[in-house]
């Protein structure tokens, strides 16, 4: 067996010069420090994305993206297709854990100032992927064409519609018309399985390439210290195996969630029915949804909802561009202000998500 392995390796090495890659991997280290644990979340997010791709492709084999058949096709997947229930439940659970893991990853990078030069592009691609992840969630939520998803999408697509001048065209572009109809479903399906994955793959490629090329970010206070053997861990095989171990645990959690809490399908959307009580978006949009509810209808001369949407837009833009305006960190001294802003944002998101869930 050992000989066979060596022969195979030699055969491939002869053709693609594996040695160079192995040498590179052998010299790659992960710094060991207080915040070491956070390094795992990038890997977990990647693992969950891979699961999404695999289960998504399997669902595609039976899913029918039409307002007449979408709900029934998922019903069919869940009741008739062998292990269809498992695939769908894992896809839904994994989608939520993916967002959660990506948000944790983003905040850990934020607190550790991992975005600072020369990793601005890594941060930007990461933020774009997070936004795409939210897009995946928003578009995927509608695909079962059930009552909750239908009305949540109706409310969700109305929100950009309030932006002056560009709002209405954006809303109509998202909906494929003035209302949420079968055309919206086809459009969201296209975004979900083609546009977003295509873009995501490009950003993911750049992100991973840069992580490999630049190595893991080291916290500012350790940056100028020489890391001895005890303060660094070889990426291969140590860190990779630890990553794999965590992936196995995540897989186990996913399987338990999928079996014990199968994702509910709800009632088929009825375009003529009135909106059911208690409609709300997915949990990761709740903090924004709740904020918009609290803003008064008029703030000075501005419409409250417009103000809310514009403020969120501005906040996300500033957040994404942090490597470019956080000059203190760029100069090499820790910026406490960024820590406070990040903490405040985190607390705000948690509190408003809980409020949105409870109220």
């Amino acid at each position: 067996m050992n000989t066979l392995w060596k022969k195979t390796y030699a055969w491939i090495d002869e053709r693609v010069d594996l040695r160079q890659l192995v040498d590179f991997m052998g010299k790659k280290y992960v710094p060991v420090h207080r915040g070491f644990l956070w390094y795992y979340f990038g890997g977990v997010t990647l693992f969950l994305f891979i699961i999404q791709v695999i289960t998504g492709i399997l669902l595609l084999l039976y899913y029918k993206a039409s307002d007449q058949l979408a709900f029934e096709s998922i019903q069919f997947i869940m009741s008739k297709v062998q292990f269809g229930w498992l695939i769908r439940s894992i896809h839904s659970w994994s989608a939520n854990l993916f967002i959660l893991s990506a948000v944790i990853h983003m905040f850990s990078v934020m607190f550790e100032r991992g975005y600072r030069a020369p990793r601005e592009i890594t941060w930007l691609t990461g933020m774009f992927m997070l936004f795409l992840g939210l897009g995946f969630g928003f578009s995927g939520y509608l695909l079962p064409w059930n009552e909750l998803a239908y009305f949540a999408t109706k409310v969700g697509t109305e929100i950009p519609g309030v932006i002056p001048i560009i709002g209405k065209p954006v809303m109509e572009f998202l909906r494929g018309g003035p209302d949420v109809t079968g055309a919206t479903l086809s459009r969201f399906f296209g975004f979900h399985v083609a546009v977003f994955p295509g873009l995501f793959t490009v950003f993911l490629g750049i992100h991973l390439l840069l992580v490999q090329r630049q190595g893991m970010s080291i916290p500012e206070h350790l940056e100028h210290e020489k890391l001895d053997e005890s303060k660094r861990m070889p990426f291969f095989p140590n860190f990779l195996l630890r990553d794999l171990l965590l992936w196995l645990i995540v897989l186990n959690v996913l399987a338990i969630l999928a079996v014990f809490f199968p994702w509910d399908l709800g009632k088929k959307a009825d375009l003529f029915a009135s909106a059911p009580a208690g409609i709300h978006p997915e949990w990761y949009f709740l903090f924004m949804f709740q904020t918009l509810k609290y803003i008064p209808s008029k703030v000075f001369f501005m419409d409250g909802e417009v103000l809310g949407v514009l403020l969120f837009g501005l906040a996300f833009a500033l957040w994404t561009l942090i490597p470019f305006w956080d000059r203190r960190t760029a100069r090499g001294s820790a910026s406490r202000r960024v820590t406070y802003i990040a903490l405040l944002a985190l607390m705000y998101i948690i509190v408003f998500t809980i409020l949105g869930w409870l109220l």
Partner: protein
Amino acid sequence: MALVKRIIGLAVGGALLLLPIISLPAPAAQDKCYECHSTLGDAPSKAFLVDVHRSKGISCAGCHGGNSATDDMDSAMSARAGFLGVPKGDDISARCASCHADESKMRSFGSSLPTNQYANLKASVHGAPAVSGKGSIAQCITCHHAHGILHVKDPRSPVNHANVVALCASCHSNAALIRQYNPSLPIDQLEKYKTSVHGMRYAKGDTKVAVCVSCHGTHDIFSSKDVRSKVYPTNIPGTCKTCHADADYMKAYGIPTDQYEKYAASVHGIALLQKNDVSAPACNGCHGNHGATPPGVESISAVCGTCHALNADLFSKSPHKRAFDALGVPECEICHGNHGIAPPTDAMLGVDSAAVCSQCHAPDDSSRGFATARAMRKLMDSVSVTEQRAGLLIGEAEQRGMEVSEAKFQLRDARQFRLQARTAVHAFNEQQFSDVAHKSLAVSEAVEGEARAALDEFVFRRTGLGVSTLIITVLAVALFLTIRRIEKKPPGTS
């Protein structure tokens, strides 16, 4: 003795002759208007002679204004004296209401009449604008007349029990008039009424029997589609009950007075009175509105078929039809009752003591009735139990998070076929019943199969999860040990 009798006879005869004079109302003091007009011999003053208002001392000026105390025409009918002339349109009823809506005025005349008639009339269907454009459809004088107004109990009054049917019919049987207001409103109420028990008794002079106003009200008449109407579907049983549940009132007629009580507890009564289902029959649903039976129904015993058409059709083709006709017994009523119809249950079918079939069919029955009833009940029980079991299993599978919505939907077919089987009972034909009942059984059994498969799948999932979790955990432990082994090695060794 004969002389005494003769004197008494003369006294009574004289008194009877003088009665019209004695009963004439007391004239209004100083009613100069009446004094002049009566000499002219005009119709209003002739009619006013017996008017109830005159007896209360109300002069012409009471309605027309002016000064009735002077015989100077110019002064009596001057604007200064408040002369109004002949009121027109809604001013007519407003003149009546100036006293009749004023409780203190009415009491000053010693009247105990209600004072809400005008308000009721204005709100009623007759208070709507007339097509002539001159006020409401009906004014007070439309029914009570203008100058010869008599007490309602006076047999000469148009609103007296004896005359009120003709009064209502004077407009409501006039096609040309009614068409202007509601072209879909029938005009044959009087003709139908004459065929009803109420109408026939009325024709014989029964003074207690229901007339138009008994059911529709007097001043407060609303369209039967108006929920305030006494004849709105949910109000009809209460309206009929007014007389029919009054044992004293109905004593002379010798009919039961518990119909309302029974009806209210019946399947129809619960639907109408508790669930406000206006499609459920009220009293008139079976007994008709103005006529003796609903339109197109030959006999009240066949009235159920107007709604329960399929059951009636099956029954009419069944062996029971001939037998019941021969015995002269009512059709549906013999098994289901009349006013107190309870929701039918499967227990009505069969040969045990609770079953209605056993009222006529015995084991030594020469017909096949006994055997048929027994066989149908057995199959019906089987249908119900199988459907119930399938429902329970589907519920259990659903509760465990299994996707069984399609099977659950199919179960509706089983219920539908069971209901059809219950209808098919009325053919009293075992084969016909069995064909439908087996359709229900087949669906229930298929659903039960799917529910059991879902429950098995549930067990499989849990077992599968256990096995896969175990495998993943073993792999994770192995990986963990590998990592520990690698990390224990001093650097540089491989």
